[in-house]
């Protein structure tokens, strides 16, 4: 533990603190989902997600060889460990359960998935209809006359609990199908690797990935808006480097055409701009709707393309034909008719489940998570207005238990007519925790703790994190070998390119990206698609070959290496680098 941060560390709930007994177990740092130190509140994402993930693997679908994921936090970093089932008798017993449960899901996939969408949209509507937070001086007369009998301050507690409950519930929806979906993909993946030992991960991904997945939609909306801007004749307002606010203000003065475009923008924003610039696991991963700089950064380039007569439509039919051909060509290479039939069965299954794997993220990690953090932010604004702390986002330095306490403190103060106690209590704690996070961010994080097992074959860990003994060795090597001029990661999208690196550490910097730059960032995300048209290649700290970044890079035909672990810290802004996306290697040239 970093000295001086003990109190900040103690803020996390007791059940996620390391104990002496944990030393005997193998833990690895979940840098894929939690690449930065977690603030006290943001840990709720780990809690809710692992609670739901484990329910699915341990008790709902009963995966024969694994239970759920344990997690611990140290220095703000989330470490996770698997819970393998090793007793053959127990595996056999769970296999019976699994086939009654999971096989039912696979057998009724389309119906259950349609039902899932309904549930998920209802959950989103619930979150959207949560009341605004208000503490009027006197109870509204209508409430009194209607005999409601419950004062407005109670709504704070009620809304908070519903907000929190909805988030935990959302994660159950998230994992309802996910492991089953990944499992079907992994089955096909493992078969391909056996049949074609040298096939690249990205080729298998291309055979399985959907063409019309929701995840392409936000970028398509930006392209649509570019086309409309040209059609309406207001495209001259979209100049590189101009802020979204300035552009929108200018459009207000452009009469019907300007207002017409702003209406189009409003159409796109609901729901497609409910997409986070990160994976949605941190409160500061804001959405396009919260910060329009990302979609607007893509507009000038797309507008130039429209003016040049280029079609911005994705050639859906062509892409589908290419995918069919790819599948057909590999099928022909198989050695026997037996294998071809098995291949057909496995890819059929993968195609059947994959729309869920790709589609759920928009609803869960993006749309819902965004609603959730924004609601908490409202509590932050209310508490800040009552002097609990200086800024609304200070609220994320409280755990969700502490936030409930602060809300009750405020409710009590409103009822008693006395000042709340929070303003004396929280500011110094918030400052202390912010300082601790800054310290933790500077500290290097060991990729693994405890004894490293010879084989990592827990299906949950392999599926969700792609962690194998080999990848672990690679990480361990990378962290000890900083003198090397090369960084290694997953080969996400093939091609070789050289150019200046534009190291983007936060979304606010997205405006700095210039045509021909190689984007270097922590996580690329489908939301970054609009700037992919400008860049020559992409490198990220986090992500696998099936990550959405990889999918988008392949779509744009850009060389990309993801999951390097250290690109944003090792590569300097403006440094010349070479990206070999086919081999997964980044070379520092200057």
């Amino acid at each position, binding site marked *: 533990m970093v000295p001086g941060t003990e109190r900040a560390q103690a803020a996390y709930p007791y059940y996620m603190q390391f104990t002496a007994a944990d030393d005997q177990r193998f833990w690895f740092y979940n840098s894929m989902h939690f690449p930065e130190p977690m603030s006290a509140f943001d840990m709720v994402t780990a809690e809710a997600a692992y609670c739901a993930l484990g329910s699915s693997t341990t008790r709902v679908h009963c995966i024969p060889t694994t239970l759920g994921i344990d997690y611990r936090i140290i220095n703000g970093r989330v470490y996770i460990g698997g819970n393998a089932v090793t007793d053959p008798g127990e595996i056999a017993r769970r296999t019976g359960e699994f086939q009654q449960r999971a096989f039912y899901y696979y057998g009724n996939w389309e119906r259950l998935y349609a039902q899932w969408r309904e549930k998920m949209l209802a959950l989103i509507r619930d979150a959207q209809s949560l009341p605004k937070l208000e503490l009027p001086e006197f109870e509204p007369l209508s409430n009194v006359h209607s005999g409601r009998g419950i004062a407005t301050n109670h709504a704070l507690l009620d809304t908070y609990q519903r907000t929190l409950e909805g988030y935990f519930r959302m994660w159950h929806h998230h994992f309802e199908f996910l492991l089953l979906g990944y499992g079907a993909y*992994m089955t096909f993946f493992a078969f391909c690797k056996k*049949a074609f030992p040298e096939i690249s991960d990205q080729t298998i991904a291309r055979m399985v990935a959907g063409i019309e997945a929701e995840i392409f939609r936000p970028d398509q909306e930006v392209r649509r808006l570019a086309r409309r801007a040209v059609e309406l004749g207001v495209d001259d307002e979209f100049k590189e480097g101009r802020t979204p606010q300035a552009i929108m203000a200018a459009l207000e003065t452009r009469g019907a055409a300007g207002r017409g475009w702003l209406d189009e923008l409003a159409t796109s924003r609901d729901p497609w701009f409910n997409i986070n610039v990160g994976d949605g696991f941190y409160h500061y991963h804001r959405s396009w709707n919260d910060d329009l700089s990302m979609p607007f950064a893509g507009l000038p380039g797309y507008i130039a393309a429209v003016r040049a007569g280029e079609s911005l439509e994705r050639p859906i039919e062509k892409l589908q034909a290419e995918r069919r051909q790819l599948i057909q060509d590999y099928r022909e*290479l198989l050695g026997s008719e*037996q294998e071809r039939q098995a291949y057909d069965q496995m890819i059929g299954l993968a195609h059947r489940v994959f729309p869920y794997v790709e589609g759920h993220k928009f609803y869960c990690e993006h749309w819902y998570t965004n609603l959730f953090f924004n609601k908490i932010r409202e509590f932050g604004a209310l508490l800040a207005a009552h002097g609990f702390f200086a800024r609304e986002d200070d609220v994320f330095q409280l755990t969700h238990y502490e936030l409930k306490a602060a809300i009750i403190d405020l409710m009590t103060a409103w009822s008693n007519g006395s000042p709340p106690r929070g303003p004396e209590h929280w500011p110094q704690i918030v400052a202390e925790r912010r300082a601790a996070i800054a310290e933790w961010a500077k500290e290097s994080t060991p990729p693994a703790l405890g004894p490293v097992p010879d084989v990592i074959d827990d*299906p949950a860990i392999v599926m969700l994190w792609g962690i194998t003994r080999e990848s672990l060795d690679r990480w361990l090597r990378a962290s000890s070998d900083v003198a090397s001029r090369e960084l290694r990661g997953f080969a996400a999208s093939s091609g070789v390119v050289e150019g200046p690196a534009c190291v983007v550490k936060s979304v606010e910097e997205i405006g700095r990206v210039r045509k021909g730059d190689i984007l270097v960032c922590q996580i690329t995300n489908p939301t970054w698609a609009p700037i992919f048209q400008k860049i020559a290649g992409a490198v990220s700290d986090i992500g696998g070959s099936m990550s959405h970044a990889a999918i988008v890079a392949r779509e744009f035909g850009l060389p990309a290496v993801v999951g390097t672990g250290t690109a944003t810290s090792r590569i300097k802004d403006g440094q010349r680098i070479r990206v070999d996306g086919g081999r997964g290697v980044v070379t520092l040239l200057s």
Partner: protein
Amino acid sequence: MGVGAHIAWFDEIGLGDRAQVGGKGGSLGELKRAGMAVPPGYVVKTRAFERLLESLEREAPVRAAVAAVSPGDLAGVTACSRALRRRVEEAELPGEVLEELSIAQERLVRGGTGQPVAVRSSATTEDAAEASFAGLQDTYLWIKDPAEIIQRVRSCWASLYSVESISYRRKLGFPEERVAMAVVVQSMVDARTAGVMFTRSPTTGDRSVVTIEGAWGLGSAVVGGEVTPDRWVLGKITGEIAVREISDKLIEHVPAARGGVEAVAVAEERRRMPCLSDAELQELRTLARRIERHYGCAQDIEWAVDRGSGAILLLQSRPETVWSARDAAPIAKREEDPLMHLMSIFGTRRCP
């Protein structure tokens, strides 16, 4: 016996003619048939060898002499080999054979590229069942003089009576009546770059990649292992270049002024330069796919890039043998319930 009984042009033959034109000749004909660019040439058919043997047998026994030696008697084999080789190399060619050969050679020089030729033994299918049949891999390169061509044809035939060849046949009890050999005479390519490619990975047996190895100059340096070639692995279907190993190519084989080839040092600036461009790699991949489809099985292919035109020419294609022999049970079979495939991920532990 009509004109052409002893000679066949590549475009007249295919794999089905291997009994008369040997494996190499049949394969070159088949490549032409598949629409590939193959340097022009002809095959001196096994019939020509048989005619020569007939005339030799009239003087003194040949086959019976071989059949009489015991494979364990090295001195006997050596003596037999020495005597028979000399007889084959010094024998007059039957008149008709000689005439057909001169006409063909003239036509090759006139109608062809005018380049010097390569003369190669082309064992018949029966013999070539073991590709490693000792002594049957004779190749004479960059031959300019017509008289030398005839001499080299005889050398190829004589190689059937090398010590290794005789011992091998005797050990297997191979009947001498079935011993025959064709000889390929082919215009050479003055290769800027040449090498081999495999439509199945030599290291993993993967059918989805094409492995290409090449070096500067004539392919003999690569085939003979005298240079470490550049090496690439391409996705057969995707064209992705997964491996690029550019080696330090110290020497290259080039035509010698007086005929034949010689090894020369590669200039410093070219040594570590890739010997093929990405476009050429992709063209080779396309050719590899077409050839493999034509034959219906994995192939080992020799190719060359013409120094003057930059065109890629195919010099040889033969079935891959190592991995094809290893293919055992299918890695997965159709399941009555497709969901059972999932148990390979969910239901098993790789390490109990």
